[in-house]
Structures are given as structure tokens and as C-alpha cells.
């Protein structure tokens, strides 16, 4: 029987992300898997409390399937990835507000070749927002 108590995300180190796919399709004890991944056993038990797949036998001993655990580690990596938000036409990233804003009063300055420079004002804080535009035929240029 398997048990999942808490399914919140865990911070998984890069070393574990690299080593986890090498786990074998067999049942490990927590100590063995901690040794193979070079993490403290307490850390591993913390992951088990946070939803890492495991099961208990009749004697209440914990067993971890290597392949299931590797899949869980991989899912944790994907869960921590922030969704990408490509900047749309007329948008820029305000360094003061630390967010994506719609640039006001944008002016485009050609820099070199296909590269141009869009400079405008943040609608939230009134600060200057800069953005590089790679393609000379982009939507920003057609708007200006």
C-alpha cells in the first residue's frame, strides 16, 4: 500500500536530479536511497512526508520503488519551473515594479542591423522602461 500525506513541492538539489534517473527498478530502504543520492536520511524522510511515493509492509517498514521515486523527483523539477510569459507587443519589464507592464509613450531607436531599442514609461511607477527589439519588422515598429 502506498501513502501520500502531503503533496506540496520540495526543493530538490541538482545533484539529486542528476542521480535519481540512475535508481534501479527495485525496492529500496530509505537509508539505501539516501546513500545512493548522497542526501541525509532526514532529508529523504522529509520528502516522504511531502508526498514522495513509498509503501509500508506489515512490519511498518518503509519501502521506496526506485523508478517511482525517480519519476517523482522529475515531477518536482517540472513543478518548480515558472511558466514562461513572452513579452507581447508594446510590453516591457519594469525593474522598479518587478513586473511586466504596458509601455507608455514608447519611442523606438534603431541600434544596429535588426536590433532596435524601445524606451517608454511605466504606467504604474512612472519610471523609464527599456526593451530591446530584435526584429525590425516587429509589431512595436508598426505601432509607432
Amino acid at each position, binding site marked *: 500500500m502506498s501513502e501520500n500525506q502531503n503533496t506540496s513541492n520540495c526543493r530538490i538539489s541538482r545533484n539529486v536530479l542528476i542521480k535519481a534517473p540512475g535508481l534501479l527498478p*527495485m525496492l529500496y530502504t530509505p537509508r539505501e536511497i539516501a546513500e545512493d543520492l548522497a542526501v541525509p536520511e532526514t532529508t529523504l524522510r522529509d520528502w516522504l512526508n511531502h508526498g514522495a511515493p513509498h509503501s509500508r509492509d506489515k512490519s511498518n517498514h518503509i519501502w521506496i520503488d526506485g523508478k517511482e521515486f525517480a519519476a517523482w523527483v522529475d515531477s518536482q523539477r517540472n513543478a518548480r519551473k515558472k511558466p514562461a510569459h513572452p513579452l507581447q507587443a508594446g510590453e516591457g519589464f519594469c525593474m522598479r515594479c518587478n513586473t511586466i507592464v504596458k509601455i507608455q509613450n514608447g519611442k523606438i531607436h534603431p541600434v544596429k542591423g535588426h536590433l532596435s531599442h524601445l524606451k517608454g514609461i511605466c504606467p504604474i511607477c512612472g519610471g523609464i522602461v527599456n526593451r530591446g527589439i530584435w526584429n525590425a519588422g516587429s509589431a512595436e515598429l508598426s505601432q509607432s
Partner: protein
Amino acid sequence: MLDRQNYLKVKLFLKYSRDVHGRSSLQISNDFEHLKALLLWAGSQPLGSVHAFNSSLSDFLFQVGEKGLDQAELQGVLNTNQRFLLWVKAMFPVEFQNIRLSWIMKITAISKGKEVII
């Protein structure tokens, strides 16, 4: 599922290699990677019966290695497995009495026509 006893024997061998032969952490790590091939080849069967398998270890490595193996890498894997089998036969003579020394010595031989794959 792999046989846990096989895994425990491999772990014991790695500990012995480190403590007695003084092999470094990197060598131990490489040896473990090489011995994973033997564990996967044996599967759920005990290592004491590997001599009775239909396919050889080198053939298994050719099947598993999707990206291909070069000769030196393959020979390294087979040599490590030979060292392990010699050790395990010495340490567990009753369990491994059916595995002959001549069979272990031949495990490093690569089948003809498969010498080099890159």
C-alpha cells in the same frame, strides 16, 4: 523488480573495494554504474544462477545501449563484472558453487562481429 539480495551483494563488494583495496569514491561510483548492468541483466533471478541465462552479458549490453558503446567502455564494464563475480564466488562459495571459474573468466569475451559499435 530486481532481486534485493543481488543489490546488497553489489553494495558489499563496493564497500570491500573501498575499505580493503582503497579504491577512490570516483572509482567506486564507476564500478557501481558498471555493476548496474549485471543487476539489470540478472533481473529478479539470483546471481547464483546467471551462468544459466540464455543471453550473455555482452549481448545484453549491446541490446540496452541505445546510444552505442565503444570497445573500451564495454571492456571496462565486463572487467568490473568479472572482478565482482570472482569476489562474490570467493565470499559466498556455497551459493555460487554452480558458477565455474572458467565461465567467469570468459565473461569479458565479446561476441564476434560486435567488436566495435560507436
